[in-house]
């Protein structure tokens, strides 16, 4: 408890050592199936982390637990020092979340939608218009701000989803496969937005993907999970230090994990 009080006191202070995301012994069971088990890691403020794993490894389940959408069966999550359940409102205020499918209301315009999101994310009234404007601009949505979301292309919808995640200027961004299903140009644009956010140095980002190039393009650190367990947690430079490509490094880790699992 004392730890949490310091977390609150340290809020807004510079150089706080409280991790942006702290995960301890996280687990989720669906009946007999363990989707995630014993997952622990810490992510410091300003870090950009790639959360990797094959399909069905438990990436989405983990992200849903990080954001408090679903409750874990074991372990705990703290966002900027706040427990995602006992301090739910504070923790949720600190998170921007882009789920696997962008959570959009098709009949709204990007502008009215972001205004709505800024209200439910507790952006103070005086700052709301500016916050919406900044999110529209950062995600390149100015030209479509008054079009209905249902009429927008998939790339634009993904950008509206991203704008929704950043409109309240959260400390922590959780992005679940932000570039899935987009064409190469759209992918490049979305990555550029994420990189810009990361470049501010204040923004903590955890993004899930199974595209290795994406990790190389954006992230400093990689967490790899397989069958619900963490199998690797390393900085990108360490991983590729021996001149090995990221692909080779992963192949090695995955084969070793599969072998251990079989044994």
């Amino acid at each position, binding site marked *: 408890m004392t730890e949490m009080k310091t977390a609150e006191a340290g809020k807004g202070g510079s150089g706080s050592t409280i991790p942006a995301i702290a995960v301890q012994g996280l687990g989720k069971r669906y009946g007999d199936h363990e989707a995630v088990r014993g997952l622990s890691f810490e992510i410091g403020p300003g870090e950009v982390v790639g959360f990797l794993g094959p399909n069905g490894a438990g990436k989405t389940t983990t992200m*849903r637990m990080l*954001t*408090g*959408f*679903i*409750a874990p069966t074991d372990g705990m999550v703290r966002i900027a020092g706040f427990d995602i359940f006992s301090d*739910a*409102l*504070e923790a*949720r*205020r600190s*998170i921007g*979340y882009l*789920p696997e*499918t*962008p*959570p*959009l*209301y*098709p*009949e*709204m315009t990007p502008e009215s939608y972001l205004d*709505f*999101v800024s*209200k*439910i*994310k*507790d952006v103070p009234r005086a700052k709301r218009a500016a916050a919406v404007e900044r999110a529209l601009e950062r995600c390149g949505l100015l030209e479509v701000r008054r079009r209905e979301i249902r009429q927008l292309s998939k790339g634009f919808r993904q950008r509206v989803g991203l704008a*929704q995640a950043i409109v309240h200027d959260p400390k922590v961004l959780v992005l679940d496969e932000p570039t899935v299903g987009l064409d190469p140009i759209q992918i490049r644009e979305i990555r550029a937005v994420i990189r810009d956010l990361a470049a501010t140095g204040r923004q903590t980002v955890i993004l899930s993907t199974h595209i290795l190039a994406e990790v190389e393009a954006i992230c400093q650190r990689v967490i790899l999970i397989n069958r619900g367990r963490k199998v690797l947690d390393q900085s990108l430079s360490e991983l590729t230090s021996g001149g090995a490509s990221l692909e080779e490094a992963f192949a090695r880790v995955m084969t070793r994990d599969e072998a251990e699992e079989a044994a």
Partner: protein
Amino acid sequence: MRHTGTIAARDLRALFLSPVAYVVLTLWSVIAGTFFLASLIGFQDRQIQYQQFQMLQQIQSMNLNDDLIEPFIGSMWVIVLFLLPAVTMGLVSSEKANGTEELLLTSPLSIWEIVLGKFLAGMGFVTVMTAIVAFFPAILFVYGEPEVGKTLTGLLSLLLVSMTYVAVGIFASSVTRNQLIAFILTFVLLLILGMMLPFIVDLSMAGSGLGTDSAIAQIVRWMATGTHVERMLQGLVDTADLAYFVIATAAFLLLSKTVIESARWR
């Protein structure tokens, strides 16, 4: 609770941006107009009959409230049962279908704020419906002298029934992501709650040895909305009837809250 208004405003706007709201309001207005006209013609016919047969006592006891406004509103509340499911079906189910449930549940909102926001949006809509119905008795005030109190009690009963049904609709909408299923479920629940309970009681109780006046029969009959509307339509404002509407509404809102919250524990 400060987000309740935000949710309500968004949902109400979404309702009025969809064709459903206009289809429902058009049908509602046409039906109200037709029923009102029918009640009016019926009223006149009876007056003429009584005059032909010199039934002075009956003519004197006839009045606009008991013989025109009451049967009119008494038939309109049944129509609510058919039209309202179309309005409430998407209130929660569309959040699941759009994936916006994930946005709401990861925002700094309480589940109550979400449920009450949706309830307020529904209330906004049924207020418009009640206002449309109120327009017809209002015409009578130009040509005659109906009792204001009795007329308002009738309209209040319509609003209270609608309130209860909005809560039922939100509950049905929260258990599925499919709007059609939500529609059918709401309709079935309203049919049972609104009309069928007394019949079910009479049928089952008469068959069993309990009799139609047993305690259970009385409780089930108390649960039927019809019982309470009809009493209010006669101009009786009884706390017991008001309590019924408030309790039923609160019960279904509590159920909705529980169902929405359960998404976290799956």
